């Protein structure tokens, strides 16, 4: 029996913080974590990881590549599971994750390069063709091998309620590695985002870091896809950094804002989803809620900024 049963939005939050405090002081075992808590923590970690990687991607103007990756991970997962057995089982093994991420990252960048340079197709069309065709192939293969005509649905929409403790471990691992690599090479990323030429002259190789970024992004996408699906992950990846961008003008602050908003929105979306279930008997998609919250947060902050802008200009005029 979940301790959150019958909780509304307002009773959810105190209960959550109380239980987290118990967990940290060791009075609550890890195995006693309720499903809602696993959801909050997994979603939170996924969104923090996505916010960190996304900030670099947005600043480097590489989000379309991220969009392509979020589609092509499907073929990576399908092939990885065909080779390593078991399709869409309970959890994802670390080695499968690595293999699939590596595979889809390499496949996407290699095929895009191939279309662009060897077959002489313009760049936007190359990206578009590669990810749609790989995604189509992934859907057909997944449908045929699982004998399930609705597999495409789960892939696109995700299912937070099906999250497992293993998913939390994977999310922790991915978010941790994202955080470490972003902080470790913070200077290098900053250089690459704002001045490629200067970065190259300091001996920072753009291609090497480009591949690292691809690998991290595809790993994050794969760890997220069971929870939020391939498309809503993109909202985390792009939306959170854009919110951060509205609030500040420095990369460090942007990373911090994006990650903070990511965690808060994950917490709120699980709480809201529980609230709707309790108050109106209405089960809603938590991932969908999180995405809408990102959109709303962006709109609110953008309009507030717009207001201050007009105020400032009026003061200047006056």
């Amino acid at each position, binding site marked *: 029996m979940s301790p959150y049963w019958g909780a509304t939005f307002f009773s959810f939050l105190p209960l959550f913080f109380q239980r987290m405090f118990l967990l940290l002081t060791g009075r609550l075992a890890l195995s006693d974590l309720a499903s809602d808590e696993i959801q909050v923590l997994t979603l939170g970690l996924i969104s923090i990881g996505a916010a960190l990687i996304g900030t670099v991607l947005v600043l480097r103007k590489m989000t379309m590549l991220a969009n392509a990756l979020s589609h092509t991970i499907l073929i990576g997962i399908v092939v990885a599971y065909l080779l390593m057995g078991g399709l869409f089982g309970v959890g994802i093994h670390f080695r499968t994750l690595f293999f699939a991420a590596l595979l889809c990252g390499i496949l996407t960048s290699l095929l895009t390069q191939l279309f662009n340079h060897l077959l002489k197709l313009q760049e936007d069309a190359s990206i578009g063709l590669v990810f749609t065709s790989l995604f189509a192939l992934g*859907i057909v293969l997944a449908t*045929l091998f699982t004998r399930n005509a609705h597999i495409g649905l789960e892939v696109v929409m995700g299912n937070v309620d099906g999250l497992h403790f293993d998913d939390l471990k994977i999310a922790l691992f991915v978010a941790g590695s994202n955080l470490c690599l972003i902080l470790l090479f913070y200077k290098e990323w900053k250089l690459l985002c704002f001045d490629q030429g200067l970065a190259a002259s300091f001996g920072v190789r753009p291609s090497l870091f480009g591949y690292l970024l691809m690998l991290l992004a595809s790993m994050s996408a794969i760890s997220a896809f069971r929870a939020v699906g391939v498309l809503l992950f993109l909202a985390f990846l*792009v939306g959170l950094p854009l919110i951060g961008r509205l609030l500040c003008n420095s990369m460090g602050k942007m990373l911090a804002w994006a990650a903070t908003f990511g965690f808060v929105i994950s917490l709120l979306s699980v709480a809201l989803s529980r609230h709707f279930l309790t108050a109106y008997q209405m089960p809603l998609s938590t991932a969908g809620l999180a995405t809408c919250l990102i959109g709303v947060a962006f709109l609110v902050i953008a309009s507030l900024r717009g207001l201050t802008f007009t105020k400032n200009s009026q003061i200047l005029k006056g």
Partner: protein
Amino acid sequence: MLQFFLDPVLRAPTLGTMLMGLASGMIGCLVFLRRRSLLGEALSHAAYPGVVISVAIASFLFPFSEKGALLSILIGALIASLLGLFAIDLLEKRLNVKSDAALCFVLSTFFGVGVLIASRLQMTHPLWFQQIQVFLFGQAATMVDGDIGIYGLLACLVIAILTAFLPKLKILYFDPDFAKTVGMKTQRLDALIYVLLVLAIVVGMRSVGVVLMSAMLIAPPAAARQWTNRFSTFFLLSAFFALVSGFLGNVLSLYVPNWSGAPHLSLPTGPMIVLCAVTLCLLSLLLSPKTGLVTRLVRIGRFRFRRRQENLLKALYKKESYSKSWWLMKRLEMKGWAKQGALSEVGIREAEKLIRLHRLWEVYLVHMGQGAERVHANAEEMEHILTPEMEKELQALLDHPQVDPHKQPIPGASSGVSPEASMRENL
């Protein structure tokens, strides 16, 4: 084959997928030329919440009328997609967000709204929920003749408007500045194109689905572009490729489950149509007569082969040793350049021509200021490339040289034009 057009059950899906292809293939050309292929991706995903919301409203207003639901879906998708377009414009222009990030943001948040409302409908209206899911990956098989009327009308509308505006579009796309100076309303024309794009997406959703719709806006134009440089042919070819892939995709989505041993499995049509279109595109990229990869490789291979023949010919003429394979020798004999290991009359003339070109080019390079010791390697390449016309011009430019920079005679150099003739030319 013919049964797909005549059978009352198969007829509607076949025609539906083909009409969809026609509209998206044609409008895709314009997006392709603008290099904004990924706009289609964002707008098609943005249509999804429109579909869901309109189904939610329709299920509330007229719970038993299928027709009403279909119409409301189309209108809802149209409105949502246009809203998406507006949002992208707002983000780019007012909030200074980079184009790629704006596209991704609108794509994912709009889709998120759709997912949220769909999850609400899943419990309250499970049947309607299934209807919505059809629009994710497309399911042409459930189309009926009544649907075709509406989709056909929309597709024809797109095609008619495009055809009517084709001359104007041609000017706008090849020379936007000129279009402005002759007083064309370029902004209004651009807006029209975007509306048509949204219409084509709405038509395509039913058979390809919102997730993969963008491929149908990219693959057929990309394939068509490889075969032609003409604006109107480009449109027709692209429409043709899209028609074919629509038809094949629909047929394959019926047959593939059978072949894979699961006859009752209903495969979504979208992925199959997209895979067909991409295959056609890939074939075009490989095989097209001007830019195709295979064509280019064949051209390179033929040049290399000719160069080897000509190098052998030169070696025979100069009586140098050259690794001669049996069939290369045979090839020289076939061309009449050699007979029983010795050069024929024609062969000697050919070899002299090669050496003449080689030495002429060396003279030319020295004339252009290069050191005489460095010109050999370049001339070794150019001797296979220079045409008779270029040779004549070189002769005239260099005033019919008799020796090359290494003091070797240029064979047959004076045979071209007599000194008097060249003097007359100079005067």
